[in-house]
């Protein structure tokens, strides 16, 4: 039988080259070795891979010699029968052999083609591609889109969704979002201060409207009690004045970006980190109060910028005239301590006499020291007592603070002294009259007695008639005593201004009203307790004051011997400077109490004390 073998190669231009050979015999072999009739130079093919045998007209069988399979029409087999008339495709390694019949001769033909490249490198390669990382890493474009979308969804869409699905927090003091993480918390720019920690889950309690900066009404939802208005907003803005230069530009920008001026949050900045809310700097005060008079013409306030070098003299609110009744009804006015300041409180009281280290007052104090605990001489606290906070002094009270020495006794019954009633002139008069009405004049020892009588009946009668006259006029002696007590040298007159009787001969003396001032500085704060290391007299020049009308308040100069400005500014050299911001004495949201800064300081102090005490207790129990 004759087999025709056609080896087909390709030229570079793609056209085929066919080399035909003819093999005679009943069988031919397929393999890599050169002596095979069908020679396949293919390393995937065994040297003698298979044998082809004739099996009748146009029929052949193919059988593997090496035990290695081959493909027939795509199926892997080790032997196969093929009808050449119908044709078949054999595959050995990278070679394809088409089986068919030659049209002319009718011999079986094998058309051999190499379909796979010799090696991987011989395959077509895109040199613009293989030397890059394309295909080895996720593409830049896809990952750029992926990451961008991930960020937009998680950091923009989710927070907006969280905002859109919750809007009932605004202006609701007690409204809260459910616990857990809400998308808009991704937007937090810093932790809230301790004071607002409870709001950290409820962004919308402050950020009420989107794209609208936080407004005061959100703050005032909770701060109904403690946010006292400083001054009307229009006056505040006027006193701040028109900014110039860069400040004007900044205002233009913030107004353009919908940030109106004068909001709470301008001073009370938030999201500055967990911890105490930062106290406001005095620059915020000085923005308006420095040179305010030139911008707010009708203000009564003086300009101030820094305690150390730019603060007006104190202007305490002093009594103009005492009135009867409540002290706070008395007319008062503010006067500057630059003038010689006086105040008429209706009392006569020479401080110098009482504080003198020698003399009658000191001597009397020494004598009474056993009973009242006075020292070698009288000192301020013998008469002036602080209130319960130690901030200010209680009004001086006659019975408690003066009567130790200034006794109003007028009679003694048994061991008990009867005293005139303080503050009640009518009762004084009545008591004195009662005294003279109910007590006889002292009986002369020679009356009705023989013991010490001058000889002669006439003397005895004279004594009797004198006594009878004394008894007769005993009642009228009362007026004389009343006049005495209200007149120079009398108990009332020593300390009080006495109003004369309504008509000559009458005794309806009156006492001028008395009022005491418990607080002179109403716009500022001063605590005596904070200054208890100091002697009273180092600020109050009481030792040299001989007139009760002297206002013994220290001026700003005295304060400045210790207190300097926020950053240390001072007009004179201060050895132990106490840096003092506006907020040490003044409060933006002022009430009658101490300023916020001092209250916070007190809170901290008491916390430290409590903690210290607790530590002591723990240590104590441990040692036990």
């Amino acid at each position, binding site marked *: 039988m004759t087999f025709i073998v056609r080896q087909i190669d390709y030229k570079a231009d793609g056209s085929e080259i066919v080399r035909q050979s003819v093999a005679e015999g009943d069988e031919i072999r397929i393999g*890599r*070795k*050169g002596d095979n009739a069908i020679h396949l*130079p293919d*390393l*995937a093919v*065994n*040297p003698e891979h298979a044998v082809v045998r004739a099996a009748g007209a146009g029929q052949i069988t193919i059988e593997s010699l*090496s035990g*290695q399979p081959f493909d027939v029409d795509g199926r892997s087999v080790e032997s196969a029968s093929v009808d050449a008339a119908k044709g078949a495709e054999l595959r050995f390694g990278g070679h394809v052999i088409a089986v068919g019949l030659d049209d002319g001769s009718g011999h079986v033909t094998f058309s051999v083609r190499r379909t796979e490249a*010799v*090696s*991987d*490198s*011989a395959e077509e*390669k895109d*040199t613009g591609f*293989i*030397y*890059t*990382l394309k295909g*080895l*890493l996720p593409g*830049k474009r896809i*990952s*750029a*889109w*992926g*990451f*961008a*979308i*991930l*960020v*937009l969804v998680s*950091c*923009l869409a989710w*927070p907006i969704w969280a*905002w859109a699905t919750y809007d009932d927090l605004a202006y609701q003091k007690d409204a809260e979002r459910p616990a857990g993480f809400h998308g808009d*918390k*991704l*937007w*937090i*720019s*810093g932790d809230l201060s301790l004071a607002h920690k409870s709001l950290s889950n409820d962004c919308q309690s402050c*950020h009420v409207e*989107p*794209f609208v*900066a936080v407004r005061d009404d959100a703050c005032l939802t909770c701060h109904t009690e403690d946010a006292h208005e400083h001054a009307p907003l229009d006056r505040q803005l006027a006193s701040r004045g028109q900014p110039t230069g860069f400040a004007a530009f*900044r205002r233009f*920008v*913030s107004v353009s*970006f*919908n*940030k109106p001026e004068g909001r709470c949050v301008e001073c009370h*900045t938030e*999201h*500055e*980190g967990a911890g105490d809310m*930062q106290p406001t*700097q005095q620059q915020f005060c000085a923005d308006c109060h420095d040179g305010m008079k030139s911008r707010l013409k009708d203000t009564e306030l003086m300009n101030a910028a820094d305690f150390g070098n730019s603060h007006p003299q104190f202007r305490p609110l002093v009594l103009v005239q005492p009135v009867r009744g409540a002290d706070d009804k008395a007319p008062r006015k503010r006067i500057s301590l630059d003038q010689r300041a006086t105040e008429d409180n209706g009392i006569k009281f020479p401080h110098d006499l009482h504080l003198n280290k020698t003399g009658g007052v000191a001597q009397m104090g020494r004598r009474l020291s056993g009973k009242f605990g006075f020292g070698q001489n009288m000192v301020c606290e013998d008469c002036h007592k602080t209130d319960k906070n130690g901030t200010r002094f209680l009004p001086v009270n006659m019975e408690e603070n003066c009567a130790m020495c200034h006794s109003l006794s007028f009679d003694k019954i048994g061991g008990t002294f009867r005293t005139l009633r303080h503050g009640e002139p009518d009762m004084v008069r009545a008591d004195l009259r009662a005294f003279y009405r109910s007590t006889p004049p002292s009986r002369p020892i020679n009356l009705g007695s023989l013991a010490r009588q001058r000889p002669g009946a006439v003397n005895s009668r004279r004594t009797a008639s004198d006594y009878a006259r004394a008894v007769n006029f005993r009642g009228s002696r009362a007026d004389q005593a009343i006049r005495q007590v209200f007149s120079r040298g009398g108990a009332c007159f020593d300390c009080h201004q006495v109003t004369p009787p309504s008509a000559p001969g009458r005794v309806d003396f009156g006492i001028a009203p008395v009022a005491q001032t418990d607080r002179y500085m109403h716009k500022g704060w001063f605590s005596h307790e904070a200054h208890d290391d100091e002697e009273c007299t180092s600020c109050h020049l009481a030792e040299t004051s001989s007139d009760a009308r002297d206002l013994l308040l220290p001026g700003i100069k005295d304060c400045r011997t210790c207190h300097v400005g926020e950053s240390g500014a001072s007009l004179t050299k201060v050895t132990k400077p106490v840096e003092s911001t506006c907020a040490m004495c003044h409060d933006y949201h002022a009430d009658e109490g101490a300023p916020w800064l001092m209250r916070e300081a007190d809170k901290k102090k008491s916390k430290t004390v409590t903690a210290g005490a607790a530590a002591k207790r723990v240590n104590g129990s441990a040692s036990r």
Partner: protein
Amino acid sequence: MASAAEAPRRKTRERERQSSHDGFLRYAGFRWLKIATLLCVACLASYMLIDVQPRHNGGSWYGYTLGTIGAGLIIWLTFLGVRKRAMTPGGWSLKAWTSAHVYLGLSLIVIGTLHTGFQLGWNVHTLAWSLMMIVILSGLVGIYFYATLPQGLSTNRDEMTETQMIDALRSLDRQLHDAAQPLEPAQAALVQSSLEQDPFGGGFLARIANKYPGCKTRAAQSELRRQRAYQPRTGNDPLDKVDSLLERKEATMGRLRKHLQIKAMLQVWLYIHVPMTFALLAALSAHIVSVFFYW
């Protein structure tokens, strides 16, 4: 002209040469390095001098200023990708742009960080800052590679082009294929495995580390040598030729793989730099929107 003739002869001045070999780092005598340094110093000084109360943060007027400058820079820097696809000569040449891109991009470390006021947290604002830092640092790595690797690339290439490299490989493969024809099936299979293996395969890690533990060429060579070690020398062993061809192929592959490694390093940073830039643009948008949303 007489006056010209009487004029003293001046020494010929050296012509100002315009060197085209300056890289983008040295462009115009480090012009952009100087500008970026000036910018950083100005930002640092103003940060120290301007007293923002209670402390520096992105929400003060100063913070907004830095933020605006930073955001503008980021957007401009991103435009290098657009710009490099449209080449123009001169002062605004691509080299100038790249130089400015590098140095202004580095200055963003200072501007962006000062903008934060060093207040970082788990939020969109810090995310934007972190992405910015990742982009800048990956760019820094890129600059380092660009400055150090091309020398090695050139040395390794030994004046071969990439096409020549693969052609050499193809030629060796063809020769190997021919030389292996007389071999036993088992030996032929070893050679075949070397031929069939993709010289560009192995994945990203193999390429960047230049470590190919599954290299069939090396395996075939060592196995064939092992087998041959026990065979008598006949002087006409086809394995001799195969062995020498495999050795040459391995040397060529070594060069190719070194080339691929260096090229991978020159490209890999961009796979972080570019996607992170787009993530940054998204985070920056979210950052800005969030600030105004909860104004």
